[in-house]
């Protein structure tokens, strides 16, 4: 394993940024999100970003086409997605797993989303391994290895510094990293920038376990019989019906198509949407098949815990803990799974 010192890390990133844009976790006040990095910007190494990196592949807003009307004639101009190469630096394994889950939606089943695909194909991913989970983390319950790197081109490894900070929740900033290539693309980058690397032998930092778990044993068998269960009304009573959970979730991918007209011109755009919003299933004729919080809430958790698994064999959750940390009324997926397990339901073989 090669190492890269904290002193040389900035220079390494500067060198990368000369070749192509580097997207890294940076702060605006207390909010960390992935932004194009430029010299002088401080990268947040300590904790995962609040805003997940999904917007790099599924932007919150994306113009699809523009149009111009003149009399009875019209012209349409398609807008291609920006497919210029870039580096996504400092994403965590939970979020990397979320991208692999999104790939199944946008790149399989006979449907290829070309905009998603071009952004995905042209992004070099440098994952940052975790060693100290937050109290809201439960990625290991979802089969995510915080030390892994599946899907990454390069892996940054936290090294054992020998001394831990007094505040156990925080990573020690300014430490050195180990760096390993996982793909030929990654090898190429390392080779090109070998001046920044050294052979200093250090052990990876010891891995601490997650304290929190998503225990979904039995949930799979129960859920198909629970569509009309009273649990959905009970659980959703507390829900505010806002979109915090869906917008901060790295795996929620629902979108809406909206338009803007200015005189004779206009454009159609794709934007994030949330199944928790009342207009999400509103039909043109005014009927809403999910008229209340109960139906919307049920849909969200059935999608996470049941529908996605039926189609792709996995849960639509990565254990990143953002919903746990930020739901205004603490209605997180671990809590919901626990309540489903506790609920008295008909679990006969169907």
């Amino acid at each position, binding site marked *: 394993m090669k190492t890269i010192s904290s002193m040389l890390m900035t220079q390494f990133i500067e060198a990368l940024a000369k070749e192509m844009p580097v997207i890294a976790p940076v702060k605006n006040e207390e909010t960390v999100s992935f932004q194009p990095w430029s010299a002088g910007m401080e990268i947040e190494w300590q904790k995962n970003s609040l805003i997940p990196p999904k917007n790099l592949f599924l932007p*919150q*807003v994306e113009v699809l086409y523009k149009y111009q009307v003149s009399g009875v004639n019209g012209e349409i101009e398609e807008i291609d997605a920006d497919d210029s190469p870039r580096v996504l630096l400092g994403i965590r394994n939970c979020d990397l797993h979320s991208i692999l889950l999104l790939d199944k939606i946008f790149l399989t089943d006979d449907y290829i989303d070309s905009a998603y695909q071009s952004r995905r194909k042209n992004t070099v991913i440098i994952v940052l391994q975790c060693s100290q989970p937050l109290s*809201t983390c439960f990625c290991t319950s979802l089969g995510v290895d915080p030390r892994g790197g599946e899907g990454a081109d390069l892996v940054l490894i936290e090294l054992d510094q020998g001394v831990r900070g007094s*505040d156990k929740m925080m990573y020690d900033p300014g430490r050195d990293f180990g760096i390993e290539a996982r793909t030929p693309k990654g090898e190429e980058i390392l080779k090109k920038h070998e001046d920044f690397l050294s052979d200093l032998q250090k052990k990876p930092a010891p891995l601490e376990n997650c304290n929190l778990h998503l225990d979904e044993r039995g949930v799979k068998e129960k859920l198909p019989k629970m569509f009309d269960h009273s649990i959905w009304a009970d659980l959703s*009573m*507390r829900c505010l019906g*806002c979109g915090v959970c869906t917008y901060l979730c790295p795996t929620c991918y629902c979108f809406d198509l909206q*338009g803007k007209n200015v005189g004779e011109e206009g454009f159609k755009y794709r934007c994030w949407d949330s199944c928790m919003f009342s207009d999400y299933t509103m039909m043109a004729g005014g009927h809403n098949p999910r008229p209340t919080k109960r139906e919307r809430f049920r849909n969200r958790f059935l999608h996470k815990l049941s529908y996605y698994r039926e189609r792709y064999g996995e849960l639509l959750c990565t254990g990143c803990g953002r919903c746990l*940390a930020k739901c205004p009324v603490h209605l997180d997926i*671990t809590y919901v799974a626990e309540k489903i397990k506790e609920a008295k339901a008909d679990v006969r073989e169907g």
Partner: protein
Amino acid sequence: MKISEQIRDYAKKMLEEGEVKQFIGFEKGRLPFHSTPVFITEPGQVERLIWDDYCITNLSKYLVNFSHEDGKTALVVKGCDSRGIVRLIQDHQLQREKLVLIGIPCQGMKDSLRFFSKGDDSLLSPGGKCQSCTHPNPVLYDILIGEEVKSVNMDRFKKTEEIENLNIDERYLYWSREFARCIRCYACRNVCPACSCLSCYLDQHRVDWHGKDPAENASYLLTRAIHVAGRCIECGECARVCPTGVSVMELNKKLIKDINELFGEQDAGVDFSQTHPLCQYHTDDPDDFQ
């Protein structure tokens, strides 16, 4: 007797005697610093009710969901919850006779939502919204548990003045950075007791209407601030629930400060006799804008 036990006793009695149909309070959530709203309908479930330093959520907005149902609802109210209820009654969203209010004077609550941003230390002091609270004691209640606390005399417009004193470019930059963080989750709207429209203008799905584009963040946040101007009860829930920490409450504070300066000191949701300053006029009202 501890406050939690007193709450359970009242809840048990009210539910057993059928005085109320449900009792709204707090229960412990997933993590030690999670206290979360709970809706109790069975006397056997009252043990779930708790009272601790994390009962920060304003519960008043939930009542709107039950206002058309038969039977009474009981709930625990801090100063901010009670002001929300006064406001909602004044807006004809709730009926006082269908509510039983258990008032609890509040010392200021800790804000678990800041945990992800700041780590554990920020939980040691009361959350941001409580630091500028003017009414820690319930203004409306049927039963009071605990001793009334003294209101801390603080300058609640300190930050408002700091922003006012920026020059126009600095102020534009400040608000641009704030608005840029809004992800349009509408948590601020959904938690707000002054946002009581059954169908929000934002949920209308039409071309050229307000869309979900973050380019329209400023227009969303400013429009909402104007909608609740004069009715905002300063509970600060909008800013607390904002996942990206947009200073939503500073927009409301500015409007409150302006209203106070133009029409005299107002305190929304405190006194039933006080009418909404922007829903009436006097012939001597200032009209400098003309």
